[in-house]
């Protein structure tokens, strides 16, 4: 926790410093009473981390039914293949990214996306893949794979993307 705070504090200092050099004339007024003046908030973005190169193998995306996080037969078959591939690449870890279609509540969909990622993780664990190689993240309905508001588009957005990362 402390580590995070140090990082955040540093980022804030950096962000503020950067903001100041750019916008030295910005008055310190309460912006809420000055709706005409648009003061961008200091951005607490951490410095870009240098990621190790991702291994060059690809995994198929797993799809789900509306409001469901149950794996269908096709999904299970794809995960069986993925399990085999993982045995040949012991240095590869996976980030399982859960997504939903655009319908329904954003907050509920964030939880649903995570359930989908967890379902994939549990299936892979049952195949013998070590949990330490599997991380999950949910993007809910915030990052659709395809635009469009018809069943074909929605079906392609209800998914878990399996992203190989260096272990």
């Amino acid at each position, binding site marked *: 926790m402390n580590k995070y705070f140090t990082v955040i504090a540093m980022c804030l200092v950096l962000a503020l410093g950067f903001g100041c050099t750019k916008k030295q004339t910005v008055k310190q007024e309460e*912006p*809420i009473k000055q709706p005409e003046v648009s003061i961008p908030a200091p951005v607490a973005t951490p410095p870009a981390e240098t990621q190790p190169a991702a291994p060059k193998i690809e995994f198929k995306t797993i799809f789900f039914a509306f409001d469901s996080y149950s794996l269908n037969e096709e999904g299970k078959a794809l995960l069986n293949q993925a399990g085999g591939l993982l045995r040949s690449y012991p240095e590869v870890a996976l980030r399982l990214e859960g997504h939903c279609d655009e319908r329904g509540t954003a907050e509920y969909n964030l939880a649903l996306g995570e359930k989908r990622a967890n379902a994939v993780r549990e299936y892979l664990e049952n195949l013998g893949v070590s949990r330490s190689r599997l991380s999950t*993240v949910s993007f809910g309905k915030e990052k659709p794979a395809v635009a469009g508001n018809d069943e074909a588009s929605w079906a392609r957005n209800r998914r878990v993307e399996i992203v190989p990362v260096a272990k």
Partner: protein
Amino acid sequence: MKIKYVLLILLSTILCQNVFGRADVYLKLSTSERRQLELGIAPLQAQDAKDHPEAIVNAQKMLEIIGDDLAFSLYFKLVYPPSLLEGYGLKKGRLDIGAWQMLGARQVLIPELKQEKKKVILKLSVFDLGIQRQVFSKDFEPDGSRAAAHAASDLIIKNLSGEDGVSSTKIAFSLKSGKNKELMLADYDGGGLRALTNFNSINISPDWQPGGGALAFVSFYRNRTDIVSLNLASGQTAIISQTEGLNTSPAWSPDGKSLALTLSKDGNAEIYLLSPETKELRRLTNSWAIDCSPSWSPNGRELVFNSDRPGSPQLYIMDSEGANIRRLTYQGGYNTSPSWSPRGDKIAFVSRIDGRFQVCTIDITGDNFVQLTYEGDNEDPSWSPDGLHLCFSSSRTGSHQIWRMHWDGSAQQAITNNGGSYMPAWGPVQ
């Protein structure tokens, strides 16, 4: 003879009730449960300001905003004269009481531009036609600003109804820009729009800290969900929650001491109470299912939340200790996004009806399920602080805009015109 008479009266009463019963209900639904004051709006008197055309333009601009505010407040039924010519409703420079009574007004708002020393001021006064005297008078600077107009509206509302108006309140929301979503702030009528964040990431679920000084929200700035707080005066941000897994749906308690939120650090989405000051974290729900989207009762004793424990997402109520869980909704297979009315009696939420998402309300007893929207998808309802209005996002015009309406679904109106506007949160009276 007497008995016949009584019977006739009884019969006509019953008949009248049957005939007019519907009209009563309709009236109640289409306006509000509260009595509205018939308020005449006199044309601007500006003889004094002939040499200040900009003051006249500014005053007209402010009066337009004030008229919209007073009409939307639900406390008034505005009565405009048939002619907007200056001097209408006046007799020899004084209010023509008879003319305004004929129009059905009980009080009249009289706007005047007056030259005082070297300054021009906008004097707003209200004359009560019943007791025949002035009941409100206040001078304003005719600077044409939206903020000054909204402040004048709330002052009039407070003086004539005794209630706190919402004319000066703000609405925060999430605006799509490319692949990102940044938080925006607007007046409650969509005016004065400005950006709050410039994070270059997805930022959603804004929730106002009581008092209105800060917003908690969900940020993907690390490409995962964290709960961040933004101080509106200083623009400074701070991390509120960064646990493993989900950190979503922040909801400040009414006393501002704790934050209800959704975390999945213990395996799946559960609701927790976090005290940002002491860092104490208490788990409230315990279910294999998704539990998320908490919203506080106004007295801070209970929370309504979303859970798919019955196999589909439904609304539940629990106390703030996590005990006494009861199911609230049984209609349909998808009820989410609850928002507890500041008046305490109703919960607004989203229900999937015929494949589309609609804003509905239900009493906290589980009775009176009422559908408020019908076109497009309508999501993320948020109450005004007086509990008389709701804002929400709607796709009915083809793109997502922020809309507002009265508690009963009447007067639905878009307040944004950029597409990609989502998740509005109506701020407190400040």
